[in-house]
């Protein structure tokens, strides 16, 4: 799976989790940019991503994620 495919899939997931059609998923995007991206929604987002890509992240990996770019690198290293 290349980066473009991961971004495309992530766009769908973000729309689903945040119930918002117009989120543009860029590498720089982070929690402060999105309404409703609080700690619980973050967990719901991570759990949805884990399920969608069939991967599991460790708690320390989840803690270190700073933006979507970091998330994509992490997914890329697993799938």
């Amino acid at each position, binding site marked *: 799976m290349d980066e473009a495919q991961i971004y495309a899939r992530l766009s769908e997931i973000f*729309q*689903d*989790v945040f*119930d918002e059609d117009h989120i543009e998923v860029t590498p720089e995007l982070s929690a402060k940019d999105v309404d409703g991206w609080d*700690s*619980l929604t973050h*967990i*719901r987002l991570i*759990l*949805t991503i884990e*399920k969608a890509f069939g991967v599991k992240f460790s*708690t320390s990996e*989840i803690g270190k994620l700073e933006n979507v770019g970091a998330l994509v690198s992490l997914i890329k290293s697993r799938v």
Partner: protein
Amino acid sequence: MNSLETELQWLPRAPLDYSARLRAVGNLDDQQLGRTLQALAHYALDVNQLTKLAKLCTKARSEGKSFAPLTPFRLAVLSNSTIDLIVPALVASALRHGIDLEVIQPSYDQVAQEALTPDSTVNRARPDGVLFALDYRALPLKLSLGDAEASSATVEGALGYLQALRQGIKNNCNAVCIFQSFVPPVERLFGSLDRALPGTLRNLIDHINSELAGLVLAEGDVLLDVAGIAETVGSATWHDPKLWNMAKFSFSDQLIPLYADHVARTVAAIRGKSRKVLILDLDNTVWGGVIGDDGLEGINIAQGDARGEAHLAVQRLALDLRQRGIVLAVSSKNTDSIAREPFEKHPEMLLKLDHIAVFQANWNDKATNIKAIAEELSLGLDAMVFLDDNPVERGLVRKLLPQVAVPELPEEPAYYARTLAAAGYFEAVAFASEDLKRAGFYQDNAKRANLQKQVGGVDAYLASLDMTITFQPFDATGRARIVQLINKSNQYNLTTHRYTDPEVAAAENDSSVFTLQVRLADMFGDNGMISVVICRPSDPGVWEIDTWLMSCRVLGRKVEHMVLREILEHARAAGVKKLAGTYKPTDRNKLVVDHYAKLGFAKVAEEESGVTHWELLVEGADIESAPMEVVSHGFFEENSIA
């Protein structure tokens, strides 16, 4: 992982455009909103979809929109874990079961404070029910390996804590208490010995669960068997230590939809909304093969044959359900005589014609047949479950009769019975001895109807029934059935006031409230409790009839006349001058719109909503009697004060 349970496979998959369908709800008016939301919940939804559906509900509620005809229920959830993802799932899953659920969620891990403080968030909200969503980490559990005495002290301590919580809620807001059984952790200390040895975590939790179940039954509380759910899906699937460490989730996020559905069916059962009738297709559902093509010798229901045993398992489950009071019916596309043949002649059939209350075998479409079955049984479509192996028939019934529950079935018939059971359509929170007889009542009714045709005049027919009517005030023995009738009766119900077990107990113990439980027996057998009345003193000398309901099984027997005569007798003895009655229309109780008029009450007011108010002067009221023997006992007139 067991996908039947974890993926709610009895429900159809959500359509691809599900999000778009949710967005379309925004423009609906009040008339369609409740049913539309309910229909949107009738899919197997994941946490994100449940969250979105719940968001719609929250928005509609904040705009003051009506969710009618869904039944409102206010549930407080007390938990030692993070329930923020669970709460929206509860709201959305409740829609599936016809409940408009409002959740009261106090701050994280404030269980004891909320239960015990009279003016806590929960107690001030006066919820209908309180769910103690506790897991084993909430209990004061101390290992005492091999020490039986210390171990039972720990068990008693844990139960004492739960009972203190219960007492707090009972004293402060008197809501129905829902307790969860506890899922033991996966990690063993010794191994298999953990279950046997006193004082291990496993052994302590086993004992707590077993004693908790006994207490719940004895106190009239409700048990949500979470340990049973975890057992079914596997406790290693249930417990996820990563999620606990990271966010204090007490179980895997994958199981939230399943857990939420179990909570929702329990709440629906408290409100009497469990289903009552199982309608069976025949060919390839009750037996393998097509009777019209394969003939009596060709159909497959043999013991020792894999296919045959799968269908026998469906029959066995249907029979067991019938034994606990679920009514069985048949809807089959067949010639009637051919469809009946296996029931009459096949030696391996477990189901007999005697077990089937309504048998519809013809060439009409199944929606028409199911409507006919509902009418014949005087029950609503939302009391029906329809089991059919054919996806086309299932789709047709879902489309034309969305209130009927239609489980998806897998290809393999061996899983039919398990799928039907997993769907939880017949969830019950209590069991009254009347339930054992109920399926038979409906059949006796069919016989009575036949007799009516033979004897001609109604009065002669009524006299020939040899009826005995028994009046008693509410008591502890009858309470489970009284609560059941109050929550289940829709049609012959003047006000449709719903009361929980504690509320009925309160009426029972309040000497100013006049209560009646009514039983009726006849030549065919005992109908059990068939009517309930609650009168409360309003103005001096006036009894307001708060509740008057009757089972539709005994329609047309002049039971209501006899009930009124009984009320009048007690009213006179208590010095009451006037009875005041109210008819509150719902979409189900048109049957009783003229109830008070027929009994000689005078209409005193009519509201725009259709609510009508009626009065009857006790002095001089002369109500026609019906041919039945009257037994009245257990009343203490000196306590009644007008």
